[in-house]
Structure formats: C-alpha cells, structure tokens
C-alpha cells in the first residue's frame, strides 16, 4: 500500500493542482510537493528493520503467479532516486515561481513525478515499461508548451527519438519472458524471478540484451544516440530541464542497474569493452562539445552527457568501486546538473537570452548568484570536497582496475571539465560587459531562488565531505560484482 500511494498520490495531486486557479496553484504545488517529499522520506523508516535487499515489497501473492503482476518494491538504489526526484520537485517550484499557466505546468510535474516513482519502484517489467513510456507524455507537454522558440520541433524530436528506444526496449522486454518460459516452464515478468535467467546463455539472449541496452542507452543518452538531448534541454523550460537532466536521464542508468546487469551478468561482463569504450567516448565527446558551445543551456546539456559517461563506464566494470561510484554519481549528477539548470533558468528569466557572450560582470551585480553558481559548477566539474568528485573518482578507480588505459582517457574528462567550466564562469561573472548589455538587467536572487540553491549547495557540500553513509546505503543494492 505504501508504494501504491507513492505513485498514486502525485498523480492525484497533479489532477488537483490542474483544477486550481493559477493564483493558488503555485502554493498548492509547493505544499503538495513538500508533502510528497516528506512521504518519500517517511516510507524509508521501516527500511532499516527489514531483511534482504528488496525490503519494502508489495506482493499480492507468490512471486511467479503470472506475467502481469502488481509487484512493487524499493531497495536503497530506488529510494535514493525517489528522494532525488522528490527533492528536485519542490526546488523547481521555488526557483521557477513565475512560470505562466502555473496550474497545468505544475500538474505536469506531478504526473511526471508519479511516473518516475513508478519506474523506480516497479519490479514487474510490465509496470516498469508502462511507467517508462508514460513519463514521456508530461515531458512532451512541458517542453512543447512552456519551452522557448523552437519548443514544438524539440518536443516532437524528444518524443520520437526516445520512443525509438522505447520500442527496442519493449521488444526486448516481451521476448524475455517468452524465452524464459520456453526454457524453464515458468511465466514471470518479475525482475527477482528473472535474475540470471538461462536466456542469457542463448544466442537469442544476446539479441534481447542488445535491444534492452539500446532502449536504455537512448535515455542516458549514450553516444551516438545523444542527438535528442541538446535540443530538448535547450528548448525546455528551466524546471523541465532540471527534471529531464536530474532524474529522467537516470532512468537509463537505472535500467542498466536494475534489469540488464542482474539478468544478464555473463553478457554484461563480456560487453565491457564496448560499454567501457562508449562510456569513455561519452565523457570526452560531451566535454569537447561543451567547450564549443555558445549557448549556456546547450553547454550544460553536453556536460550532462559527459558526466553520465562516467556512470556507464563505471557500472560495466562490475567492480565494487565502479558500481557504487556509478550509483553515487547518479545522485550527484542530479544535484549538480539540476542546480546548474536552475541557475541558467534564473539567468534566462532575467536576461531572456542564453548566449554566453551576452553576459559579463555579473559577480558585482548579483553576488549571491555568483556564489551559488561557483559552488554548483565546481561540484559539477568534480572539485574535491564537493559531491561530483567522489563519484567520478570511484568510477575511474573501478575502470582502472579493469582497463588502465580507459581510466586514463576518462580522467582526461575531468581536466576537460575544468577547461570548459572555469572559462565559462570567468566569462559570465568577470568578463567584460558592454554598456547596455543584457547583464544590466540581471538582478540578484530573491529569497525563494536562494533557498532552492542553498539546499542544493548544502547537499553538494554534505555529500562531498561525508559520502560514506550514502555509499554504504547504496552498496547492497548494486552489489552485482
């Protein structure tokens, strides 16, 4: 029941906010999203008392009762992602307080949140896929209705491109129980029932692996399937970008961790050269593209590609360091990239441009903005002491244990991150500024925006200095080595 409420309450909240008058919708959205955050924390309370890894399970009957079977459960990985989602949502509301048509806008966020909770808790692959596809709809409308100039084309591109991945995923997910039944005589679509399925050893298993990997890779996105991301991010409104980068991209990595690695351990081990290389390509390619951007949001979109490369490379090493680092990087990336998109959204709402060279001398005009931007940017770059560093270090350590050369290449990504991050900061906050430029319109942050960013900075610092508790918490869920 607790988990059913977890995804139904946001849906109901979405309907309620939708029907409210615009004036009340913002406050209601803030209040309800905070309540959902509290609930998400509260459901973790019995967690410490349970046994095993999947602890808060909702099982209406024996495990392999049927194919489509209402089975939801959480482990520490899902819980961490649920917390991240529930945390980013109220921060979006705070930071984008003046978005127009707020009833429908914030309602979409609640539908999105409910769908994401469903993805992170579903243990039956039917429900997993249903929620996986469902989240496309609210995001399509968020981009298409509240985005900037090219929003319509970007929304359709986002929908079609990610649906390409969905279709591959669906084919793989349907083939899985059919073959599993043929080999074992058991009809099941439950992840625990399919762990290390004999299908993995057959030639068809390799095709299923490929289809699933394609589906998840589009979401992450893994080079060369990343094309949809820069456009979607550039055109999406600030809150939409935060949820897209902060949580929706994680669905891909979550899929690898939840479905592919446990179900196909042998093929995953064998596929390390491919995915390790793709991950490193992601790191370097994303960073190099980011260096070439003149649009702030596009730049951050490419850094996002770069950072998620660490996750992919790390998890396919199947080493303790790589897997825990990769899981930790998921959370860290949500905090730092979510924060960066919030910051750029604030800049855009003041200056109505995202062009890098339009800004300058902001440090004097908006000191609070400058401080928060510095902390979040450094956390994204991976400065020791802030959260980004821990995840990257661990994934690189894992990579180094398996293939030292790849780790060395991946480490170049952190250097490149400094190479695009620091000059960007310098240009925007200390660069020259012509008279009459948009920079003069940029006022400092109000208390709502400061509060949202302060929370994120606190997490960045806290997880950077004391990553131990979260690491220990995540480890049992990703112990796949």
């Amino acid at each position, binding site marked *: 029941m607790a988990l059913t409420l977890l995804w139904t309450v946001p849906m109901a909240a979405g309907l309620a906010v939708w029907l409210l008058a615009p004036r009340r919708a913002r406050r209601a959205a803030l209040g309800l999203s905070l309540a959902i955050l509290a609930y998400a924390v509260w459901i973790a309370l019995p967690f410490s008392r349970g046994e095993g890894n999947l602890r808060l399970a909702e099982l209406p009957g024996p495990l392999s009762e*049927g*194919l*489509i079977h*209402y089975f939801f459960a959480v482990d520490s990985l899902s819980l961490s992602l649920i917390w991240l989602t529930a945390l980013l949502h109220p921060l979006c509301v705070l930071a984008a307080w003046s978005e127009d048509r707020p009833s429908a806008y914030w309602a979409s966020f609640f539908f999105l949140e409910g769908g994401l909770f469903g993805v992170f808790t579903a243990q039956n692959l*039917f429900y997993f*896929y*249903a*929620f996986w*596809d*469902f989240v*496309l*709809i609210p995001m*399509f*409308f968020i981009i*298409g*209705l509240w985005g900037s100039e090219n*929003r*319509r084309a970007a*929304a*359709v591109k986002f*929908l*079609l491109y990610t*649906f*390409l991945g969905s*279709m*591959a995923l*669906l*084919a793989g997910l*349907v*083939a899985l129980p*059919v073959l599993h*039944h043929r080999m074992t005589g058991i*009809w099941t679509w439950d992840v625990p029932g399919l762990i290390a399925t004999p299908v993995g050893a057959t030639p*068809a298993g390799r*095709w299923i692996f490929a289809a699933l990997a394609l589906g998840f890779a589009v979401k992450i996105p893994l080079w060369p399937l990343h094309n949809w991301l820069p456009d979607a991010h550039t055109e999406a409104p600030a809150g939409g970008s935060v949820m897209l980068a902060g949580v929706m991209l994680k669905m891909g990595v979550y899929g690898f961790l939840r479905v592919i690695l446990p179900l196909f351990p042998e093929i995953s081990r064998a596929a390390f050269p491919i995915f390790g290389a793709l991950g490193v390509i992601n790191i370097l390619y994303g960073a190099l593209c980011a260096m070439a951007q003149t649009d702030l949001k596009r730049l951050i979109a490419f850094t996002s590609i770069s950072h998620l490369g660490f996750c992919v490379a790390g998890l396919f090493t199947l080493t303790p360091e790589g897997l825990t680092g990769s899981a930790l990087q998921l959370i860290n990336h949500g905090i730092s990239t979510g924060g960066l998109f919030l910051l750029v959204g604030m800049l855009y709402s003041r200056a109505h441009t995202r062009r890098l060279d339009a800004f300058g001398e902001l440090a004097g005009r908006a000191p609070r903005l400058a401080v928060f931007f510095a902390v979040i940017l450094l956390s994204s770059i991976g400065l020791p002491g802030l959260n980004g560093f821990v995840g990257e270090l661990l994934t690189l350590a894992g990579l180094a244990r398996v293939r030292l050369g790849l780790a060395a290449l991946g480490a170049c990504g952190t250097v490149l991150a400094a190479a695009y991050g620091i000059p960007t900061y310098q240009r925007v906050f200390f660069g020259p500024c012509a008279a009459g430029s948009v920079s003069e319109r940029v006022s400092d942050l109000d208390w709502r925006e400061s509060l949202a960013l302060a929370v994120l900075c606190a997490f960045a610092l806290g997880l950077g200095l004391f990553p131990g508790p979260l690491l220990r918490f995540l480890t049992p869920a990703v112990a796949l080595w």
Partner: protein
Amino acid sequence: MTSLLVAPNPLPLLAFGVTVLAVLATGFARRRPGATARTIAATGLVVAAARSCDPGAMGLGAGWTPLFVAGALPFLALLPSAGEVAPALIASSVLGMAVLAWARHLFALFLGLELMSLPLYLLLARQSRERRTLEAALKYFFSGSLAAGLFLMGMALLYVSTGSFSLDQAVPARPAAQLALVLMGCAPLFKLAAFPLHFWLPDAYDAASPELASFMSTSVKAAGALMLLKLSVALGPDSYLTWILPAVGAATMTVANLLALRQDSLHRVLAYSSMAHAGTLILLAGTGGEGALSATAVYLWIYLFMNAGAWLVLRAGGLRRVSDLRGLSARRPILALLWAVVILSLAGIPPTGGFFAKLLVFLAALQADKPWAAAALALNGLLALGYYARLVREAFLEAAPKEAPAAETEPPRLVPILVCVCALGALWLGLWAPAAVGVEAWLK
C-alpha cells in the same frame, strides 16, 4: 481447433433477422418513420447481441456480435431523425455480420459477407451527391465485388478438391485446397484493407461521414478479422498462412503508416491509421492458436473505443483537415484532452488500452517464434507515433488561427457524451484489462 466452431444457439440470430424485418416494417408508419426505425433498430440489435453473448468464451461465433453492435451504435444514434432508409441498411449490415459469426458452412459465410457489404455500398453512396462520394462508393463496390468473386472461386475450388462446403472439416494439405482458402482469404483481406488490396480505403473513408467511417473501421473490420480467423482455423496451424498472414500484416501496417505521415485530411490520416491497425490484426491472426483468437477479441474491443472516439471527436469539432486541429486546446479544452487520450491510445502509449493491445501482439508474435514480426511491430510503433504526435502537436502546441474553422452545423448533443464514453473506455481498458486478463493462459 475445429471445436471452436461449435454450433451456437440459433435463436439470437433469429432476433437479428426479426429486428431487420421490424425496421423495414416502420416504412409503413405514418409519423416520423425515421426516428421509430432508429429506435427499433438500436433496441433490437442490443437485445439480440445481449442474448447471444457468452461470457467467458468469445470463441469464433456468436460471442462476437456485441462487438459488431457496439460499433454500429454511435452511427445509429447519430442518424438524422427524418425519414431515412439508413436504419434498415445498418441493421441488415449487422445482420450480415451476425450471419458471419454463426456461419459454419461456406455458403452461410458468403451470404453473411454479402449481406454485410451491400448495405455499406449504399450507405456510402448516400452520403452526398458529390462526384467524389459516388466515385468512392463505386470503387468500394467494385473492389468488394471482386473480393466476393474471388471468394466464390475459392469455394468452387474447395468443393472440387474436398467435395464439401463445410468449414468444420480440416482442409487437406492438397495444393488445390490450400489455394482455395487463400482465394477465399482475399475477401476478408479486402474488408480489412490489407496491402495491396487497400486502394479503395482512403477515398471511401474520406467521403464518409465520421460516424459511417467509425462503423466501417470498427464493426466491419471486426467482421473481417473474424472471417479471417475462421478461415485460418480451417486451414490448420501448419499451413503456409502462418507465414503469409504475418508478412501481409507487416506489409500492410508499414505501407499504411508511411502513407499516413503525409496526409492533410484528418479522414485520410485516420483511414490509414485503421489500415495500420488492421495490419496488426492480420499479423496477429497469422500467429495462430487459441491465443490469437482471445488476443484479437481483446484488441478489437480496445480498438473499438479508441477508434470510434477519434472519429467522433472529428464529428464533435467539425474537423476535416489536420490544420483544423490548431488551437483546439484553447477553443475546446476538454475535447482536446479526450482527443489526446484516444490518439495516444491509438499510438499505443501507456496507460491507455492501445498499449495493452500492442503488447498482446508483441507477445503473440514472439510466442509464435516470429522475431521479425516483432521487429516490424516495433518499427511501425515508431512510424505511427510520427503522425499521431503530429495530431497531438497540432491540437495542443500550435497557436490558434485567427478565425476558428467554421463548423457547418452544430453536432447533436449526444456526440460529446459518446466521445467521453469512448475516451474513458479506452483509458479504463488500459488500466483494468492488463490486471484482469491472464495473458499467459493464452500463450499455449
């Protein structure tokens, strides 16, 4: 497998016949014959369908008639109440479908096919006096007659090779008998507008009113699917239909989805959409086994709601061209929302019924060991979203034009209610059916 063709109770079939006679008799009524005929037709059909339904097992017989009647009801309900012969035509067409459902003999099958089709040609031709309407009706008539001719030829060939007209006996694996069934199979494939027998479809649907198009794409397609299933059951599980049908189905949906991408008329987009769904049904019929029967039935019920819903939105909004959709979300927000539900359902996006229907076909294709069919389904899911996304985009994301498209006449008040029923039905089936239906039981 032939046990699926057990003789159903003939009484409900009589009820269909009596309904048609009663509707014809209203021609003698003095006052408002049209309204009376409409009421009698609707009541009679519903009662007859209710009598013939057999909860738990649709099989391949009488259990299908509620589906046919449900598809015809919006059309009947929206007929103008002036004196018309349309109620009689609709009732006879549904009677033809009922005969198809009861048929265990090839002559009965042929009778049902023709009884179903002839009123349709007339209904289409009566839509307007425009040239293109008559052209479409004539095209429909000629292609339908060709299909009937092929069916008769197949019947004759089968009789020559087996000496029987019964569907109950297994057809021998002799080439002549198999060819006979392929020839007969052309008739339902025409009705389903399978590639390459689809050329009549866009014109006919474009000339038809939304209600008629809805009837043609739900009830008539369901009858076509039933006929196809009966023939494929008669042919047995090892026949070469098991690879012809999936191939035809895959080709049909690919061609339909590609053609739908570049249409400007909403009627044509939905026509190709229904052709694509028919292609999926043909593929499903080709996977064979009892699972295919149950899955086809569930698919058709879900399809009934989403497809009728889409056509009725066109009726409710007076929409003709894709560009008419612009600004719909601002003009009629609730209608736009229901439109989004039925379109996303047709596209197969969860949590709508269309998703569950699509999932069933995936399962059936993979269970029948046809991974290429699953690949074709996946590709077509993506292609189809290409135009469905356009329909949603036009309705929600594009700014409203300066002047709203002039609605010719105010649609009857019943239309919005029917749209609601269809959209909510499509949504409800998506939420309820997956949990209620034990899918694995079909996948023997």
